């Protein structure tokens, strides 16, 4: 079944249709964040259904889901929420980062290997696709949206899951829904206003805008010069500076009345301002290295997390960005949850006696296992929620949703939190315009091979700079 057919067969009345073609026909409104018009026109002329643009969204959660809880695939009782979107997902079992490694250092090792394949050995798959498919610059306002909740910032390794180059983080995660909104929808240029002759104030404002653009363009010219061979910068240093440059370009697009190349999105592409969240726990966990962990009301956390998901998904749907990483919790997170978690008509209760990290350490049949199975259920429910949101709107002319057409991957740092190993690491993949198989797929593959399959599914012949022993090897059993 093609993505279009699948999209039509599932909840046809539910899905909003927000195709690019519709947007372009929209009432004279200008769609910022859409591909350059020239690109769109060219593809529309020659193909009825142009292929969807390459997009990658990765989702990370900390501490893993042990393989025994995946035994029955999507029918596993604690993965049940995922069954709602299972026809579009592949649960890939048997992925490893390294065999035989059992160490607490694996929180960092796994966090730095997921979506890369080797430990800080290259770009993560989102950035690899951005670089290969777009030469490093997609025709969107934001190049990469990196966001999440509850990360430990006592070291980069546990909360960075998007890398532009070996050891060079794409961005620091935005962890506040209000800041995420401001970065995406809050900064969209306003309506152009009346069409009469400009007033003196309008003329002055227009002149200031030209000056502001000149300032940024002039600075960008200096970046170009500095990253030429004029100063002998290493590739690594150039990659670091290049990420700075992308942020300046984004600022440029926020400030100016966009020229013909970018149009303002239609009214349907407006996120609700989530407002300011009062989340002292989040601030604390970001700044503290206190290993006793931070107590947190699971409900407050979920309100915050879901607000992050809402804004992020809409940003992808409105084509404000095509690449990103969302992080539910960071590697080795130490949060002590309390309260009741409700999703999909079920309730789970938390016991804040210990952090989830400590509970994983102590995993054994009995009350601790019962608690952790509830926690797995939360992971599954939040993944399902994210996937359903990605699937609720048709975004491409082939009738597909983001879940159909984008490459979507979920991963984590550990196989089993009890052993702290990095084998049988939970991985879900989806999308890529029908090029990926769905269902439960058992493999014996190093992560590099799995990510290489993702690249192939998007039609790219390059490979990940992952684990050298698996360079260029592809987990072809994942491909249709």
């Amino acid at each position, binding site marked *: 079944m093609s993505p279009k057919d699948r999209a039509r067969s599932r909840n046809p009345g539910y899905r909003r249709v927000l195709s690019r073609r519709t947007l372009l026909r929209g009432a004279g409104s200008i769609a910022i964040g859409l591909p350059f018009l020239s690109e769109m026109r060219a593809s529309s002329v020659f193909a009825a259904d142009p292929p969807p643009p390459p997009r990658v969204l990765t989702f990370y959660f900390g501490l893993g889901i042990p393989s025994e809880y995946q035994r029955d695939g999507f029918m596993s009782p604690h993965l049940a929420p995922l069954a709602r979107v299972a026809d579009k997902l592949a649960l890939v079992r048997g992925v490893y980062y390294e065999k035989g490694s059992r160490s607490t250092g694996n929180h960092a090792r796994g966090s730095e290997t997921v979506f890369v394949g080797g430990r800080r050995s290259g770009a993560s798959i989102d950035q690899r696709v951005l670089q290969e498919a777009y030469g490093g610059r997609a025709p969107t306002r934001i190049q990469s949206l990196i966001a999440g909740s509850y990360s430990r910032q006592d070291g*980069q390794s546990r909360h960075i899951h998007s890398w532009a180059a070996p050891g060079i983080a794409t961005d620091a995660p935005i962890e506040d829904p209000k800041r995420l909104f401001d970065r995406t929808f809050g900064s969209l240029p306003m309506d152009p206003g009346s069409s009469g002759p400009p007033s003196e104030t309008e003329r002055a404002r227009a002149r200031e805008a030209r000056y502001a653009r000149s300032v940024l363009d002039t*600075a960008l010219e*200096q970046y170009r010069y500095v990253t030429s061979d004029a100063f002998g910068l*290493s590739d690594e240093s150039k990659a670091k500076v290049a990420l700075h440059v992308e*942020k300046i370009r984004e600022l440029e697009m926020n400030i100016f009345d966009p020229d013909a190349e970018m149009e303002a999105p239609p009214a349907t592409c407006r996120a609700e301002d989530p407002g300011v969240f009062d989340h002292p726990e989040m601030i604390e966990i970001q700044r503290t290295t206190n290993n006793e962990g931070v107590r947190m009301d699971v409900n407050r956390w979920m309100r915050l997390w879901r607000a992050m998901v809402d804004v992020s998904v809409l940003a992808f749907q409105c084509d404000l960005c095509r690449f990103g990483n969302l992080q539910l919790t960071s590697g080795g997170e130490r949060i002590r949850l309390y309260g009741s978690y409700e999703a999909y008509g079920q309730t789970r209760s938390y016991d804040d006696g210990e952090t989830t990290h400590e509970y994983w*350490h102590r995993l054994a049949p009995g009350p601790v296992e019962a608690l952790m199975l509830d926690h797995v259920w939360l992971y599954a429910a939040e993944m399902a929620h994210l996937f359903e949101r990605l699937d609720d709107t048709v975004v491409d002319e082939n009738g597909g949703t983001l879940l159909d057409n984008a490459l979507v991957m979920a991963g984590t740092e550990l196989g089993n939190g009890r052993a702290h190993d990095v084998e049988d690491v939970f991985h879900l993949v989806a999308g890529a315009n029908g090029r990926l198989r769905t269902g439960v797929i058992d493999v014996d593959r190093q992560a590099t091979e799995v990510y290489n399959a993702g690249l192939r599914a998007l039609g790219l012949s390059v490979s990940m700079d992952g684990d050298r022993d698996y360079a260029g090897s592809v987990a072809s059993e994942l491909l249709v």
Partner: protein
Amino acid sequence: MSWGRSVGRARVRGAWALLGLALACTGEISEPYAPPSIPAGARPATLDACVEVPAPAGTPLLARLTRNEVLASLRDALGLSAEAMESGALGAAAGALPLETRAPATTSSRAQTTTFDHVTAYAALAEAAAEAADLGPFITCRAFRPDCTRSFVEVLGERLFRRPLRDPEVQGFLPVFDLVASEGDDFDVAARLVLRAMLQSPQFLYHLEDRSAGDRVSPRELASRLAYLVWASTPDEALRAAADDGELATAAGLEAAVRRMSDDPRALTASLAFVEDWVALERLEQAARGLTPAETAAMRAETEAFTEAVLWGDDGTGARGGLLDLVTEDWTVLTPALAEVYGLDVPGSGPQRVDLSGVPERRGLLTQPAVLASHANGNRPSIVSRGLFLLRALTCRDIPDPPVGVDTTTTALPETASERARSEERLDPSTGECGLCHRAFDPLAYAFEPFDGTGRYQTEDVHGNATREDGWIPNEDGEVLQPYANVDELIDGLAELPAVRECLAEKPLVYALRRGLGTGAADRCLVLQVEDAARRAGGGYVDLLVAIATHPSFTRLRGEEDRR
């Protein structure tokens, strides 16, 4: 990244690597725990072995100016006043600059991620600075003629980019004048736009050096390194002149430059920021729950005033001390409000020097409330947090995370057990293997058990247990090296340890080089040589700066061990 020494790659220095660790653990390590081995010869034991050690071969990652460096550079290059920097749009933009991550130092290039917030803050800062700055001194004539426009770009650019501009760089700014002329605005409008662009350019925001022309570090590049080492800011006219006159080409010239720069207030500011980073005071406001902002401000003020007095010779004797003196001096600078925490009565209202020889439990930086409260567990003392802090801050060593499968939560002790009793349970081999690691640092913190999480001294803890302050300094294998009866003896013992003396040279080196030091011979020798030179010159903070500034690793093209 905790000092970049991961166990798996055998980066942990010394025999401390034998130790894995659990942070609050009592229990069995279920699997055989194989400690990582130390590569033979990775640590030259003596200075004599350090002759002709080649520098690390890797290329360092380009470092961005830190938040403090951006603000100080902006202020000093444009001659803005402190008031101007803190008020209006400029103050607001400065406040919006993101804080630095510490990994391992706040200057470390590898921890820097440039976020969208950085870029918006730089833009706002540049716009506000362009409004506030007096550009008169940079303008030779006000016509849209090449002599006027080029001259302005060259003069201002040299100040902001810390070296003469190359022709392509100058050319890049000239179109701004064409635009402004075509809009009918005057020269000064264009000049301010050029300033805005320069302040957002990489030559201002990064520690950019030319590595395309072989292994030469230019005199101006060296001047910049010196300025950011001593001042955390941009070079001044005298330093630029010294560079151009070739005075920085010799060790004597470098020393003269550092000593001259040390008399400038910017050197004091930079030293305070370094010390606060070293003892991790950024945790004060979060870690010490229940303290009011006024209380934490008073604590911080004490540490700053004490640091200034010790390092900069305001202690009444005129002597300028070193980092070790911060640890060993037996006096402090107290306000009446904070004296209450010490249980002392200080007359008057302002800060005053107070002799602590009659206060046996207090001595030096480590017993100051700001430091004690920054390393606590809420309002309770934490032997684990303080022990790890002392290990990292005074020996430059670290301990990896707990080994796999350890139950870090069980204890046979009642809830009311003292911190000391909990630690002794961890260290007891019959209760499990936690002591394999904890014995390396828990005993360092025993002396501080009487200090609660707010830095107050108490003879009983919250459960009524008598507090103790006796303990021992462990050696690298976690065995008893030297027992102590109280804080005084602990500090005396630490001050004698070569590892501590070397660490106090390593810390500022990490800041100066903007990278963590590796375990290879080159970095190890660097520490030994700098420590030796600083000690022989008198051991003061300025002597340490001179030792760093005159070391080849500082003056030559830099390398870096592969630390990925």
